[in-house]
């Protein structure tokens, strides 16, 4: 049975639906991420689960128990806030001990468990410091330790890495995954950062305008986006407008505006024809002076418009003869020492028929 069930949860602010008919089921022990741009309702949904906000309709069921009318302090759910919200007048140890004190755990036991928690988050010996004396990363760890010490059923994390610099972020991500696997508590993680979501999660729910667009494992979300929004939001994606013509079970033909006729794998939907977009990841687009003309390839000649050198990879923006623009991503170790294409170079771009996904409107 799922640990947390959200059934048709809707939260309105006036006419605005911050959360619109969301149904989700989160398994025990899962690292689940709510991903979406700011204003998509992910934080509101988190507040509904924590109990700070109430759903107008629908229900929140935690471990088989309906949460309506249950105050946040009575829910077995803890939150790591974006600002961490550490109590500035308490030492690190007192901050971490807070949930245990509220639960009236005996003092001797509190001391041991706080020591243990400090060890878990690599802050041994820091118990007597005050939050103002800690770095951003240390504060984040105190906030996690404080939220986990009384072993809640569910931990909510509201953009907990947003305040950290990129280098530290990566390390903390690994720490978070390890910690979560170690203690086995279910995490619901809110972020607008798709790379964070892909790196951390067992499953991701992509949200937009209060609605859930797709729920899947990271590789499915990235590889098989369900619609244009998900394809565009997660990673980079060429979105080429066009029309799918009729085809066979496995192979269809499509005509892309400003590009031309292409072969594409069957989109696995009941609709045989129709308007939509081809979602094509830049790393699936090959680029070269000439490319081998094989039957499963879609090839177009064009001209390099621009390039972005990113260190490990280079992104080329290529305008094909029809006038359409495509992004192609080339790892630099493959391009050798200095054989970059320059703006103005004549090139051929191409992709396998099954590299792109046709998404109907």
């Amino acid at each position: 049975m799922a640990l947390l069930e959200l059934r048709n949860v809707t939260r309105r602010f006036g006419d605005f639906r911050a959360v619109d008919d969301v149904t989700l089921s989160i398994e025990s022990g899962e690292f689940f991420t709510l991903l979406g741009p700011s204003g998509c309702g992910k934080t509101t949904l988190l507040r509904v689960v924590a109990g700070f906000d109430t759903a107008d309709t629908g229900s929140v069921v935690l471990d088989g128990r309906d949460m309506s009318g249950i105050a946040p302090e009575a829910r077995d759910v803890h939150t790591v806030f974006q600002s961490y919200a550490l109590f500035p007048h308490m030492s690190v140890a007192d901050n971490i001990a807070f949930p245990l004190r509220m639960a009236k755990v005996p003092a001797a036991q509190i001391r041991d468990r706080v020591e243990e928690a400090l060890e878990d988050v690599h802050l041994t010996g820091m118990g007597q410091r005050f939050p103002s004396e800690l770095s951003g990363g240390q504060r984040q760890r105190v906030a996690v330790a404080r939220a986990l010490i009384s072993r809640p059923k569910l931990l909510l994390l509201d953009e907990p890495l947003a305040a950290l610099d990129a280098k530290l972020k990566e390390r903390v991500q690994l720490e978070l995954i390890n910690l979560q696997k170690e203690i086995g508590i279910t995490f619901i993680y809110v972020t607008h950062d798709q790379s964070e979501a892909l790196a951390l999660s067992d499953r991701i729910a992509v949200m937009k305008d209060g609605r859930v667009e797709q729920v899947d494992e990271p590789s499915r979300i990235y590889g098989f986006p369900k619609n244009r929004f998900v394809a565009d939001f997660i990673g980079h994606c060429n979105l080429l407008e066009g029309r799918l013509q009729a085809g066979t079970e496995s192979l269809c033909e499509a005509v892309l505006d400003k590009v031309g006729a292409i072969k594409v794998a069957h989109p696995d939907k009941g609709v045989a024809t129709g308007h939509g977009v081809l979602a094509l990841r830049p790393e699936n687009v090959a680029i070269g002076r000439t490319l081998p003309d094989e039957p499963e390839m879609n090839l177009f000649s064009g001209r390099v418009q621009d390039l972005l050198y990113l260190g490990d990879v280079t992104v080329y923006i290529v305008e094909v003869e029809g006038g359409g623009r495509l992004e192609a991503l080339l790892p630099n170790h493959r391009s050798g020492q200095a054989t970059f294409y320059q703006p103005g170079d004549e090139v051929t771009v191409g992709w396998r028929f099954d590299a792109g996904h046709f998404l109907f409107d």
Partner: protein
Amino acid sequence: MPMRPSWSKWLIGGPPLFYLIVFFAIPTLIMLVASFRHVGPWGGLAPLIEQGATGWQLDLTLDNYARLFADSLYLRLFFRSFVYAFVTTALCLLMAYPLAMLVARSARRYRDLLLLLVILPFWSNFLIRIYAWIIILGPQSVFVGALNSGLEWIGLEPVRLLYTPFAVVVGLVYVHLPFMVLPLYATLEKLDPALLDAAQDLGANAWHRFWKVIFPLSLPGVYAGSALVFIPAFGIFALPDLLGGTGGTMIGNVIKQQFLDSRDWPFGSVLSAVLTLVAIIIAGAVALAARRSRA
């Protein structure tokens, strides 16, 4: 950033410093010296330097201080003033805290209006406001009449409110309340609401959220407000003069009497010096406590 030339520092800080020296430091020194002098033949002060048998000499004495301790009346008055000021501070804190919290938690667009209402009484003169209390607490007032008929009805003696310690404390609380509300509001308004969410999320009920989070974080405001109420309430004289009658006299009244009625400036200075000393000790203790609560 380039260093500012030092003259600009003096330009900015000089005038207030000058003001404090001329109108605060020097008068305090004059008062301190006066507390060791003799009374002149027609009151006031005897000359500081006198021609004695051995030439010019300073005419100073400790007798004034001895007199303070010789008669327990003055120490009792100090003690009573302390108690009034303390009770006033405690009552102001009790009343101002919920008020400051209400203002701090109300919608931002109402806060300025509510704060304005808190300081609105300052728009009318202090004495006029005290006279108003004479009427409210006087025997003819509707309020006192209703109270006494109520007391009579349950078989108790009627009470007199005006010219009692009760009237003094009521007046003191009324006059000083805004000085408690404003610093409390300033600290409560800064309190990060996420801290309260966090406390609640981690299992704290309303009682614990107040005592473990809100109150400790508001201590700087509590200390500042207490100092702003206690110190002026301790030395006040006009208010007990008007509301206190003989039973409500405070040390400020005696100081006023020494200077204006008895014309015993040296002894008035002694009482003032002791009052100032007590105020400094209390202010120092409050500052120390505030620093500790911030650490």
